[in-house]
């Protein structure tokens, strides 16, 4: 059984070839065009031409240069791309990074300089003098905990974990960009 498309003139078939190559024709039209080009060398050659053209057009995406090249200077990203080491350093000097350091430092001070924990034995160093003010506050905290090492460790531990976890979350956001 023949169909009307097999007898359509080649010009009409050729007009349908771009859509055929893009698979934009409905299945019935596509199969009719396919049947025609199989029996018509001229249209078969035209189909080949559109197929080659399609393959070439698809590669035009590669001709788009990076957008950064066209940005006004004030909006262009820095040409300097920090290494992972520098990014880590940046994280450390960020507010949450500093929080971690402070927590660790506070823990060290409590353990090292509290009169209640060390029995009042203090080493008189420059650092001790510098931290004299802080020491009074630390002693107040230790006293509040009743001088009990277990309670103090538990409170400090819980506080430290909370601060470090939230600082970590904030740091990740800070570093991501």
């Amino acid at each position: 059984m023949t169909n009307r498309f097999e007898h359509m003139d080649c010009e009409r078939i050729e007009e349908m070839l771009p859509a055929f190559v893009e698979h934009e024709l409905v299945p019935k039209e596509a199969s009719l065009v396919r049947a025609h080009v199989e029996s018509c060398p001229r249209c078969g050659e035209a189909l080949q031409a559109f197929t080659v053209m399609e393959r070439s057009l698809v590669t035009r995406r590669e001709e788009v240069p990076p957008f950064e090249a066209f940005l006004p200077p004030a909006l262009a990203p820095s040409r300097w791309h920090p290494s992972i080491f520098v990014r880590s350093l940046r994280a450390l000097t960020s507010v949450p990074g500093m929080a971690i350091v402070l927590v660790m430092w506070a823990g060290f001070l409590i353990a090292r300089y509290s009169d209640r924990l060390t029995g009042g034995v203090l080493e008189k160093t420059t650092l001790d003098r510098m931290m004299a003010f802080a020491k009074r506050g630390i002693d107040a905290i230790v006293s509040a905990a009743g001088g009990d090492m277990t309670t103090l460790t538990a409170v400090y531990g819980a506080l430290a974990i909370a601060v470090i976890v939230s600082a970590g979350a904030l740091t990740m956001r800070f570093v991501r960009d």
Partner: protein
Amino acid sequence: MSNDQERDLVARAARGDARAFRALIATHHSTAYAVVRAILGPRRFDDVDDVMQLVYLKTYQGLAGFRGESKFSTWLYQIARREALDVVSKRTLESTSIDDVVIPARASDLPDTTLGESDMKQWIERAMGELDESYRTAIELRYMAEKSYEEIADLMRLPVGTVKTYVHRGKLELKRIMSRPAWREHKGAVS
């Protein structure tokens, strides 16, 4: 990128957040570039960089006035189109060359399908310059910016069927242009 994310980026960019602006442009760069390339055509390729810089500068400066009544992509498309058309209108027409001579294609002429990929790319680039600007814009958005027919219709504010007709007629026209005897004889000059 969702509409909410885009609105957030637009708001931040309008407040001067360069990072947000870069994120917006990164998403829509291929659209702006395709439109500028389409309107300038291969003969004004040297102007593309200048126009693109102007487009992004105008986009940034105009963000404060962008009310979000249209999509950011549509707004950027319009800026890119306007700036490119402005340059085209300012440039004097180039002198007529062999490529400007329109010779009707014979029915028996077909593009040489044995051309290498690199040659075919150059032929298409040259032939694009002779296409109607609407056809060229639709084709560049389709292939260079990899947009769907629906997205192109949205940008060009045309029915989807019209956009498909532009792309398909554009390809038919490209084939006819490349089938001209003048082009076939001139083949050695492009490779």
